[in-house]
């Protein structure tokens, strides 16, 4: 009985908080509400008995998203954009119909929710899918956790390309900032003792916990992406505390860190073609290969996410390239 109470309160508050996040005129308030929503979403995954996703949501939602949003919200550009949006919302025809935009978007969202509800109700009642097939073949995959065997063996190709998506995001951010060298980014002052203290405590523990999640991924919820996200958060904390985090890496090492996992999949795939098909590794070596690939995912995820953060913060660089990037050329 009470568990339904938990679910109803949780679902209702997620909807309300999401609504406030969207409508909140003040940027910072909206961001803090968004962080709270991330926590609630993680709880929702818990209630859906999906600890793998709850872990990912915790590592990325609680750690990195919050940091990125708060930093972004406090830049002057963001404040100006928010002010301009507020201005636009109260000018022109909207002055005559205050709240018209809200009503329209609310109606659209409700209609969408209703359609989605109908679609979900229409689904066949009995659980179908590939769960059983995955369980039958799990022995041949080399690991004992079904999620890992799907991600790292049956559908390793998808995972590889997803690693590529992450990599491309980082490459894109670095390309936009016109540097593959994060050493030029502004580093924080080393003044806050408390922060140094925190970084000294958190860093080793983060490595420990990431290692634990990585290792446990072979037989229980956990895994490489979550471990990588935690390490990334630790790297960002280092940077914020004034240490050289990922921005201490040279161009070559940064590139190697970003590429490691994608290249490792590529190499494993290539070797697999001698045995049969691309990405084939189902025999005795399966577990070793999966562990090795997961380790590369940990490293690359950590470096990539941390580089996204460092790259996004590199706007204050003063080299001529960055200046050029901000000045629009006469025509395009």
């Amino acid at each position, binding site marked *: 009985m009470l568990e339904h109470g938990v679910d109803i309160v949780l679902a209702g508050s997620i909807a309300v908080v999401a609504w406030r996040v969207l409508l909140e005129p003040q940027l910072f308030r909206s961001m803090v509400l968004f962080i709270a929503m991330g926590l609630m979403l993680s709880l929702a995954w818990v209630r859906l008995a999906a600890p793998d996703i709850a872990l990912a949501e915790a590592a990325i939602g609680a750690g990195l998203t919050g940091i990125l949003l708060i930093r972004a919200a406090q830049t002057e550009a963001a404040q100006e954009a928010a002010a301009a949006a507020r201005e636009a919302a109260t000018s022109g025809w909207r002055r005559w119909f205050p709240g018209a935009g809200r009503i329209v978007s609310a109606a659209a969202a409700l209609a969408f929710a209703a359609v989605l509800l109908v*679609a979900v109700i229409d689904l066949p009642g009995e659980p179908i899918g*590939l769960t059983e097939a995955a369980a039958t073949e799990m022995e041949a995959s080399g690991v004992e956790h079904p999620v890992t065997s799907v991600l790292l063996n049956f559908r390793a190709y998808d995972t590889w390309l997803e690693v590529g*998506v992450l990599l491309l995001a980082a490459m894109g951010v670095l390309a936009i900032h*016109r540097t593959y060298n994060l050493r030029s980014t502004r580093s924080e002052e080393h003044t806050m003792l408390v922060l140094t203290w925190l970084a000294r405590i958190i860093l080793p523990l983060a490595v420990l916990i990431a290692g634990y999640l990585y290792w446990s991924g072979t037989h229980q919820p956990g895994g490489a992406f979550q471990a990588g996200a935690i390490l990334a958060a630790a790297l960002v904390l280092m940077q914020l505390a004034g240490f050289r985090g990922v921005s201490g890496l040279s161009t070559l090492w940064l590139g190697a860190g970003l*590429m490691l996992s994608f290249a490792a999949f590529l190499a494993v795939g*290539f070797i697999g073609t001698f045995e049969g098909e691309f990405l084939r590794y189902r025999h005795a070596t399966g577990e070793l290969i999966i562990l090795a690939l997961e380790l590369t995912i940990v490293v690359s995820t950590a470096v990539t996410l941390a580089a996204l953060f460092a790259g996004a913060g590199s706007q204050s660089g003063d080299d001529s390239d960055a200046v*050029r990037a901000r000045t629009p050329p006469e*025509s395009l």
Partner: protein
Amino acid sequence: MSSPFEWLIFLPFAGGVITFLLPGKSRPWLALLLTVGTFAAAWWLASDVWREGPQGYALGGWEAPLGINLYADGLSALLLLTTSAVMTLASFYSLGYFSREAEASSWTEARAFVPLWLFLLGSLNALFVSRDLFNLYVALELLTIAGVALVALAGGATALRAGMRYLLAAFLASLLYLMGVALLYGEFGVLDLALIAEAAEGGTRAPVIALAFVFLGLGIKAALFPFHAWLPHAHASAPAPVSAVLSALVVKAAFYVILRLWVDVFADSVTAPAAQAAGALGAAGILWGSFQALREQRLKLVVAHSTVAQVGYLFLLFPLLTGVGEGAWRFDAWAGGVYHMMSHAFAKGALFLAAGTILYAYGNDQISAMRGLTRTLPITTVSFGIAGIALVGLPPSGSFIAKWMLLTATIESAQWWWAVVIGAGTLLSGAYVYRLVSAAFTPDTLPESIRPVPRVMEYASLILALTSLGLGLRAAEPFDLLEVGAPFSMIVAGVGT
């Protein structure tokens, strides 16, 4: 590595990794080599398909439903060939385009450009051989992120804003598609397209809402009117080779997924009213895009708006295929549509490259500034003219054949209103192409300073333009290839079942 599938995936992605890690002036040359290699792999796959019929490949040795399977029939093979051909020529072009030694930025641009470029090629290949609903999602994501990054590479506020808009639109589209995929998985319990097609046969299990999500998401990515607003500025602000492949290939990739799902997988589930609606949006796109192209003052924006119009033609396929009986016109319509995809890919690639050359030489791309182009850049003028002919669909271009087949299908299936739309679109495109060509042929005092243009840039666009023309002269082989694994057979259609 004994299968062309392996090379198609391996070559571009390995190239992306290597060119990102190893600095050196040879980078663009390596990219060129790899695009040529990819073309060879596509040719290999196409000849396998030609001789032995549709090809399959089980990644990791795991057969569907558990694993991911690749698949190629005539349609995939033709699109793979088109992709690597256009990208090879655009790579040639970029050798010249990024060699601006004088500007400090050229090095960073080229350095960022080559790996992203190869990743884009890899994701296009991955998409055209995929036979898995979720794998298609991943390939689309990869494609989108590479595309956005390449747009933003141009630098400057305009390009960044355009890239951001592109990203947001594509992101919304991805989420819609993914939601549809989740619902389809809930309905069918598998992700493999062939298995879903089996389960959906007869149309008794038609998850309408899921399909609506999927097609809406893909429609946004394919810039179907009225979801096209992100396209013109994104395509016009990018560096020239990027503009070319975005308009020629990336938009088509999303359309390819629609086509695959519509005719191969859910043929019995889609309804005639839905097909008419898709056709109507396509028609609106043709008219609106052409109209905007007529009003624009900047060359690249004209060409970009024209893409919105040309994508519209593709959506006219669906009313000609769905719910109008089993007549011979169905193969005509289908093959005409696919041929239009290819022909437009080459023509639009040529136009964007030529526009980039003008921008490169003149420093701006105002149409009014194009005067005297015949004297300053004669080869570019010629490629402009030829690509223009192909775009309008005059004989002997490939578009002419494509439009002819579409027109035949509209008449035979007694849907004359689509013929009116095709006619009006052709007239409008004739008008905007004429506007450009006449500007080029207007003699005028030459601008004071013209930056010398590397020859390779001019010839790359010329070859692309000639290819789009050649498609009209040698149509037999492509059509035969297209028939391998095709949902509508020419022979069956000929018998008139």
